[in-house]
């Protein structure tokens, strides 16, 4: 059955869907490539997706009909990141305007209500992630600090508590599954693991694989990176921390109670990754400037690059026969374009789903989705 359908675009009744049978991915052009998608986030049941078109707008669209359900311009400047918690249904957005908004969907009035969160940073917010239990969120900022925000019931608003210690912009944020430990990646060439325990919000303090619990804002561990640490990610069981460096490297740190962390560095041959996501405890996907998600897998003891997800469809290239016609064509191509195969043949990236650096990577059901300044949202199988 696959052989019969390969290469044939199946017409869709729904607007805008293009289903590529070859590489098992769904591509949706959310906005024009001249605008681009800055970031996106899925609703708890994946029926809606929120995104920002590289501006101060939040848009929420239906994931099947792509009809726009909501649009708002609460932020003053471009929205750098957003995160939608799968249980609380809170959407948090952060922006270069140094603020964050927590959006709450009022079921009675059927509207989204934003709550401003004063982060108390004097530079742009770059990244935001909900803790796994949905009680706090962490914001990475250019102000070299990470506000950890939680809801204060008495005052009915969100307050921030600052993690400092960074020497430069904080580019990546990842929560440990216990919601009390957070890892950060910064452009000061380091990845750090901090305590984000907030008494009154979290229950009893736990220190996971670390010997002793420390105070809020203190480091549990620090790791070096030869390039800016663009992204960090924790495995689902919390035993492995991955961070990606701008020097085309990825590092896997394995934590075990009672022993020091073990770092495994992989310097790869392709362009740097800027986003990381663990698909399981032994599988990680990274995405970045190659516009193609890269899978890393853990085999027995160590991690290694497995494959790129997007694959070039095998095209039936006219075999370089030795008959007169093909030789004529070859010489004509060499005359016109300088290469024997012709101008389009060697186009190394035109076949890819994404035509721009992948800047946002989110979990989608058991797989993942990516968005890029090329304006596309791609769901990968």
């Amino acid at each position, binding site marked *: 059955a696959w052989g019969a359908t390969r290469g044939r675009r199946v017409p869709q009744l729904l607007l805008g869907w293009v289903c590529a049978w070859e590489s098992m991915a769904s591509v949706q052009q959310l906005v024009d490539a001249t605008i681009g998608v800055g970031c996106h986030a899925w609703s708890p049941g994946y029926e809606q997706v929120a995104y920002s078109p590289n501006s101060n707008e939040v848009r929420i669209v239906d994931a099947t009909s792509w009809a726009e359900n909501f649009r708002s311009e609460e932020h003053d400047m471009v929205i750098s990141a957003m995160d939608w918690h799968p249980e609380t249904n809170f959407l948090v957005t952060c922006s270069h305007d140094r603020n964050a908004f927590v959006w709450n969907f009022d079921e009675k009035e059927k509207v989204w209500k934003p709550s401003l969160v004063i982060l108390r940073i004097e530079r742009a917010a770059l990244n935001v992630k909900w803790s796994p239990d949905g009680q706090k969120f962490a914001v990475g900022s250019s102000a070299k600090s990470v506000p950890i925000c939680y809801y204060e019931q008495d005052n009915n608003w969100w307050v921030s508590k600052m993690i400092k210690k960074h020497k430069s912009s904080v580019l990546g944020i990842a929560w440990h599954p216990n919601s009390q430990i957070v890892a950060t990646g910064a452009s000061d*060439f380091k990845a750090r693991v901090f305590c984000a325990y907030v008494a009154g919000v979290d229950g009893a303090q736990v220190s996971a694989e670390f010997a002793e619990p420390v105070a809020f804002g203190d480091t549990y561990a620090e790791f070096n990176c*030869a*390039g*800016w640490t663009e992204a960090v990610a924790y495995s689902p069981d919390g035993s492995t921390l991955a961070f990606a*460096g*701008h*020097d*085309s*490297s990825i590092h896997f740190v394995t934590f075990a109670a009672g022993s020091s962390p073990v770092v495994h560095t992989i*310097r*790869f*041959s*392709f*362009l*740097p990754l800027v986003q990381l996501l663990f698909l399981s405890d032994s599988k990680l996907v990274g995405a970045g400037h190659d516009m193609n998600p890269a899978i890393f897998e853990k085999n027995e003891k160590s991690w290694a690059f497995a494959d790129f997800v997007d694959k070039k469809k095998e095209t039936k290239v006219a075999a370089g026969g030795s008959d007169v016609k093909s030789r004529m064509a070859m010489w004509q191509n060499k005359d016109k374009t300088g290469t024997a195969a012709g101008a389009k043949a060697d186009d190394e990236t035109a076949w890819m789903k994404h035509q721009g650096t992948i800047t946002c990577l989110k979990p989608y059901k058991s797989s993942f989705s990516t968005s890029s300044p090329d304006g596309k949202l791609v769901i990968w199988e």
Partner: protein
Amino acid sequence: PDPRKKVWMSAVKGLLDEAPAIMGSKDAAAKSAHATKVFGSLAKLSDKQAQEVVDSLEPEQGDILLKYVYRGLETASDQNPAYFKLQAKLVEKFGVGSIVRVLADRKTV
């Protein structure tokens, strides 16, 4: 093939192995001196030998050699055509990631 010429291939590899210590320091004179030695050894390699050297390199050594190639290309010299060929061979084996590391690594040659 002159067996004496093989000496230069292992000389290049030896110099690459010594490089990390020099890269880590801030001594510009030491870096310059070591670079001159590397360029001198590279000049003695034929095209085929250069290919052999590249084939036998580990990724870390490949990154270091690429850094020297880029340093060599910074000044106009008769060696530049050879450096361009060497750069192409190195990138073919180690990928654009090695070029990214030439640009991103704060430890320079």
